[in-house]
C-alpha cells in the first residue's frame, strides 16, 4: 500500500532556496521557513534565521554591528543562487566591504540614498515585484529623531510580504514595525577590543544580540556576537 504525501506549497516554494545549503559543507541546514543570517549564533536565537513572509527588525545604536549582520545574511543568500535587495536609505553601503564579506554584488539590487519615505515605497515595490529572497531595508540613522514611519505603510508592507518566500528585514536605530514585526533583535552598543603594542590595531568588536520579539519563543534570550576586524 502506498501513501501519498502532499507537501506544503510553502515548503515547495522554499525548497530551491535551501538546496544549495544542503551540499555546502560545514553549514547547518536551517528550517525552510527562514532565511539564514549567515551567523550561526543569530540563527539559533531566531530559530533558523529571518522568517520568510514576515518582517524582522534589527535595531541598535551606531556601531553595534547591524551592517555586519546584514552583509553576512546577504552573502549567504547570494551564495545560494538567490537574489537579494538592499534598500539603503542612508547610502551607507561600502561595496568593497560587502564584496570582501562574500556578497555576490551582481545578485544584489541596491537602491541607495533614498530617504525614509522612499525607502518604504521602494521596499513595497521590491516585495510586490517578487523573486527576491531577502529584502533588507537599512534605515541607517534616518529613523532616529526624524518623522516616524507611517503605520499604514508598514501594514501594507507586512500584507505584501505575507505569503511570499521572502524575508523582509528592517535595520535601524529603533523599531518601526511595532507589532507587525514577527521578530526583532536588539544589538547592544559594541565593545571594541584593541591590540596594544606596535602601531595598535582594532582586533574585534563584540555585541550582544537580544531577542525582543519572536513569534514562537519567549523574548529575552541573548547571544554574544564577536566580529574580528
Amino acid at each position, binding site marked *: 500500500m502506498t501513501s501519498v504525501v502532499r507537501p506544503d506549497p510553502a515548503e515547495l516554494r522554499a525548497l*530551491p532556496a535551501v538546496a544549495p545549503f544542503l551540499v555546502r559543507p560545514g553549514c547547518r541546514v536551517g528550517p525552510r521557513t527562514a532565511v539564514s543570517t549567515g551567523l550561526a549564533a543569530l540563527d539559533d536565537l531566531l530559530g533558523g534565521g529571518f522568517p520568510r513572509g514576515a518582517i524582522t527588525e534589527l535595531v541598535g545604536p*551606531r556601531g553595534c554591528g547591524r551592517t555586519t549582520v546584514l552583509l553576512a545574511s546577504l552573502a549567504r543568500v547570494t551564495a545560494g543562487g*538567490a*537574489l537579494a535587495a538592499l534598500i539603503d536609505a542612508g547610502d*551607507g553601503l561600502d561595496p568593497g566591504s*560587502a564584496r570582501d564579506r562574500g556578497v555576490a554584488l551582481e545578485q544584489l*539590487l541596491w537602491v541607495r540614498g533614498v530617504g525614509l519615505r522612499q525607502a518604504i515605497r521602494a521596499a513595497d515595490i521590491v516585495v510586490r515585484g517578487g523573486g527576491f529572497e531577502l529584502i533588507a531595508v537599512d534605515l541607517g540613522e534616518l529613523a532616529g529623531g526624524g518623522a516616524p514611519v507611517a503605520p499604514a505603510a508598514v501594514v501594507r508592507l507586512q500584507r505584501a510580504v505575507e505569503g511570499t518566500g521572502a524575508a523582509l528585514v528592517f535595520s535601524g536605530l529603533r523599531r518601526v514595525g511595532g507589532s507587525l514585526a514577527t521578530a526583532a533583535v536588539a544589538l547592544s552598543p559594541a565593545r571594541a577590543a584593541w591590540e596594544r603594542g606596535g602601531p595598535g590595531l582594532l582586533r574585534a568588536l563584540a555585541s550582544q544580540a537580544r531577542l525582543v520579539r519572536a513569534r514562537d519563543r519567549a523574548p529575552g534570550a541573548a547571544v554574544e556576537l564577536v566580529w*574580528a576586524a
Partner: protein
Amino acid sequence: MGGVARYACLWVPRFAAAALARSDPALRGKPVAVLAGPPTMRTVHEVSDAAWAAGVRPGMPVAEAVSRLPGLVRRERDGEAERSAAAALLEVALATSPRVEVEAPDRAQLDVLGLAGLFGDEARLAERLALGAASVDLPARVAIAGSRTAGRLLTRAAPGVRVVPPGAEPAALAPLPVELLALPAALAGTLDRWGIRTLGELAALPPAGLATRLGPDGARLRAQARGEDAGPFVPTAEPVPCVEAVALEWELTALEPLLFVLRPLLERLAARLAVREQGTATLALTCGLADGGLHRRRLSVSAPLREPRTWLALVRADLEGVALDAPVVSLAVEATPVPLVPLQPDLFTPRRPSPHELARTLGALTALVGADRVGAPVVADTHRPGAIGVAPFTGAIARQAAVAALAFARPGTLACRRLSPPRPARVTLEGGAPRRVEAAGLRGGPVTASAGPWRTAGEWWTETAWSREEWDVALPDGAVYRLALDRASGEWAVDAVYD
C-alpha cells in the same frame, strides 16, 4: 465562392469620428461632427452615431449641422488619431491571420480559410476579431463570407458579427438594399426607375442587357450584387508601426497635463501590444513643439514590459528634469514590439523574477528614485576612497562564482558603513595621533582608543592624484570610526563607522 475561399471583413463605421473618440474618450456617446475643408467652407466630414441619429450628415455645411443639432460637438479631423486607429485595426487583423489586405484605413480583409479550427469555428473567430477591435477601442463590425465583396456589403448592412456559410452568399446578399453599393446619383435614379430595390433584384437582371444599358458600370454592379470580387486578394507586407499619437487643440506647458494626455496614449499602446501578445523594452516619446520643433526622448528597461503605469512613471521621472524650448502641441509614443520572454523555472535554483517581472520592478524603482540610484553595486578598479558605482541590475546569477567568493571571503568579519557624505572634522593631535575629534552629527570628544596611521596614495600620475592617512578611533559614543586626513588639503573627515 463555394467554399474555396473564406474572408473576414473587419470594418469600423464612421471611422474618423471613431478614431477621434478613441483618442479622446470624453467624446464617446456624444454627438460629434468631424470637420474638414478650407476655413471659409467648413463642412462635416464625418459624424458619430449620436449625431447621425440627430440628422447630421457628412457633407453638410457646419452652420446647417449646428442648426439641426445645437449641442453638436465640433472637432477638427485628426490625422494622427486616424493613423493610430488604422494601425491598431491592422494589428487586430494580423493577430488573427497572417494574410490581411488593407482596403482602406477603416477596413481590413482577412484570409481566414482554414483558421476556423484554431478558434473553434468561424463564429468564434468573428467574435475574437470584434473583441480584439474593442480592446483597442474601435467599434468594429465583422462579417465572414466567401468573398471580400460579400463581407464588405454585409458589414455595411448591419452592426455586429455575421457569418455566412459557404455557398449561402447570394441568399444573404439578396435582401440587402442597393444603396449599399454606394451608387452615383444618376445610376441610383436609373435603378429606382426600374424598380430595383435590392441586391437580389439587381443580381437577377440579365448581364448582357445590363451591360448594354448601363455600360461597364452595369456589369460591375451586378458582380458586386452577386458578391463577386473584382480583383485578387493582395495581402499587405508592410510592417505596422506601433505608434500612438495625438494632436492637441491646446498647448501644454506643464508636466502634469502632459502626463494626463500621455496616459491614455500609453494605455492604448499597451492594448495594441496585448493584441500582438508582445511587449516593449524601449519607448520613443516625441513631443511636437509650438515653435515647429520636435523633442525626442527614448526610454529603455531591461526586459520587455506591457505596463502603462510603469511606463508613465518612467516618463515622469525622465521628463521631470527636462526644460522644453516651447509648449507641446502634439505627442507620439512609439513602441518597438518584442516577445515577452517567459522564464523557465529551475527546480534546483531559488525562484527569481522573470525578466518581465524584474523589468517592471526596476522600472518602478527607477521612476521612484532615479536611474542613478538603482542597480548592482560596483567596486571601482581603484583604491581611491569612495570610488563606488552602480551597474545595471540584470539579475544574472553567477552561482559558482558566488559560492567561490563566499569561500574566499571573510563572512561575519567586521564591516564598515560609509557616512554619506563624510563628516568634516576638527582633530586635535598629540604626538602625531588624534586625541580629540569634533565632527558634525557625531558625539565628538576625546579619543578613547586609536590605531593608525594607514597611508594610501594613488593616481599620482594624473591630475586627480590622492594621498590620505587613515585612523581607527573610538569616540565617547562607543563606536569606532574611520578618520581620514586628506594630505593634499590637510582636511580631516570621518568617512565611515565600523558597524
